[in-house]
């Protein structure tokens, strides 16, 4: 049976197997759908549990268990050979899911456009960007597929589709995206003068540390502020970059490690709640 499933098919047989598999999948889902609604929650809980159990068991079961000696890899157990197919299947599933994000954006931006509500020009800009980049991107990809030599690739770049792609990507996309975050530098400058107050001794300790780290990060600190202290001199620990390095790798490291241990316990708690579906439907919306 195994060999029958895993032998590649071609031509008509391929078409039959493809359609057949989709049909079988649809029938399985229809069968589950026909069950009384309260079983659906149990099916979801069961699938979630089995999926989690697979990775947990593969990790916990020692190497060599259930695997004939000297076979594929010394560190495998009988579940390890399924890591690759699960990886590929998940990649395909997540890729198919990307369309959801696009649909949501299209829905949010479609409404103002159709009803002519204020801001319809912005929705127009959204769809223009979406359609232009998708069409130009796919056309260029298809052309590049055929271009195997660097010369052929340069020809595609020189063609209209290459030029439009660079206009959309290098011209608009990279500059728009790059500038949005650059705004924050300006907001920090105005906040520095008007909002960052040393309200408490705690805030003062924080700000003093911030100054040392800032001066240690940029060349002007080590070069001019404490450049006069020779390296290797007993007093060289006071060089701003050494003080900054010590702050980062000792007190900061210890505090971050403590936060990590908190996160570690949080990850275990959250994984248990998701794996065993302990969340009382609050997060998943309604209880069905």
């Amino acid at each position, binding site marked *: 049976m195994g060999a029958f499933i895993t032998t590649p098919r071609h031509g008509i047989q391929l078409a039959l197997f493809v359609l057949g598999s989709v049909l079988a999948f649809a029938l399985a889902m229809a069968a589950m759908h026909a069950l009384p609604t309260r079983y659906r929650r149990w099916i979801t809980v069961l699938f979630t549990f089995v999926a989690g159990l697979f*990775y947990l068991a593969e990790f916990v079961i020692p190497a060599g268990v259930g695997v004939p000696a000297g076979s594929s*890899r010394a560190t*495998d157990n009988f579940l*390890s050979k399924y*890591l*690759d197919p*699960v*990886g*590929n299947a*998940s*990649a395909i*599933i*997540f*890729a198919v899911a*990307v369309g959801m994000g696009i649909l949501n954006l299209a829905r949010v931006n479609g409404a103002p456009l159709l009803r002519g509500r204020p801001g319809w020009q912005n929705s127009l800009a959204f769809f223009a960007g979406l359609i232009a980049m998708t069409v130009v991107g796919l056309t260029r990809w298809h052309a*590049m*597929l055929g271009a195997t030599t660097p010369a052929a690739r340069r020809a595609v770049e020189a063609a209209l589709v290459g030029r439009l792609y660079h206009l959309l*990507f290098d011209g608009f*996309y*990279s*500059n*728009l*995206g*790059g500038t*949005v*975050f*650059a705004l924050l*530098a*300006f907001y*920090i*400058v*105005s906040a*520095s*003068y*008007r*909002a*960052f*107050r*040393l309200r408490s001794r705690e805030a003062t300790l924080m*700000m003093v540390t911030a*100054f040392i780290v*800032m*001066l240690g*990060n*940029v*060349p*002007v*600190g*080590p*070069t001019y502020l404490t450049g006069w202290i020779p390296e290797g001199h007993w007093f060289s620990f006071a060089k701003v*970059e050494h003080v900054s*390095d010590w702050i*980062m*790798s000792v007190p*900061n*490291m210890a505090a*971050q*490690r403590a936060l*990590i241990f908190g996160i570690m316990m949080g990850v275990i708690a959250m994984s248990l709640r998701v794996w065993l579906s302990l969340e009382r439907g609050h997060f998943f919306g309604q209880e069905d």
Partner: protein
Amino acid sequence: MLQDRTRHVLYLLLAAAIALPFFTGTVIPPTVGPEAKALYKAVEAVPNNKIVILSLEYEAGTLGENLPQTRALMNHLMKSGKRFAIMGFEPIGPVYGQIEADELAAKWHRPYGKYWVNWGYRTAYVQTLKAMAKDVAAAIRTDHRGVPLSKLPVMRGIHSPKDVGLVIDITPSTYYEAWMAFFTGPAKVKMAVAPTAVMVSDIFPYLDSGQMVGMLKGLAGAAQYEALVFGRTSRERGITWMTSVSMTHILIIALIILGNATEIITRRRKAVGGTA
């Protein structure tokens, strides 16, 4: 709204602080920190029969930091003829990686497919990393144009994680944690990270425990690495920009002190005014 006048003056001050070094042309050479030096040594130590993986998870938003890091690392890899592969768990990172690598490949004469390969964007990062931890070539299968890896000379002899000499994650987010948890941790592969500066503090515990062998601290890290590859007086992108960043830091420290000083003075004047 928000006393616009003061806000706009502060913005112009920042623009001036940044632009000044552009025109005076002054460049203050960087001081190379321990983390950048450690990463440089780790790259040098990669044997020729192993491959380096550059995982690029950044997009347009953080080009200012992640692109100079990518450039500095690729210059070093191509200069010393090390084999490397580009990939990413965000769609557009590998595109920028391809652009930079194409340009540098011409400069260092390292043709695609022979010295470096682009595996492209991959979804489902947890599942993909766990599959790679078992067999890298089987999990990746093709380059970003669908060419089977078996056809590319750069991939000859690269199958299991043991054939990966070093993983460097250039990222504005926490993908380096997934790399450590599902690939470099389990398969005992050396790992380094080139994050945006925002995340630098979180990474020090992993440098201390040896889970990370090096780090580039944002743009400062890129400048320090350029100094290691090209020398402290070179005019590479990172080193040039860091001079402007120095000016902005002096401005910010001055403004915070000034802001607090003016507040203390006004509060004291009000208190004196109150009692008089």
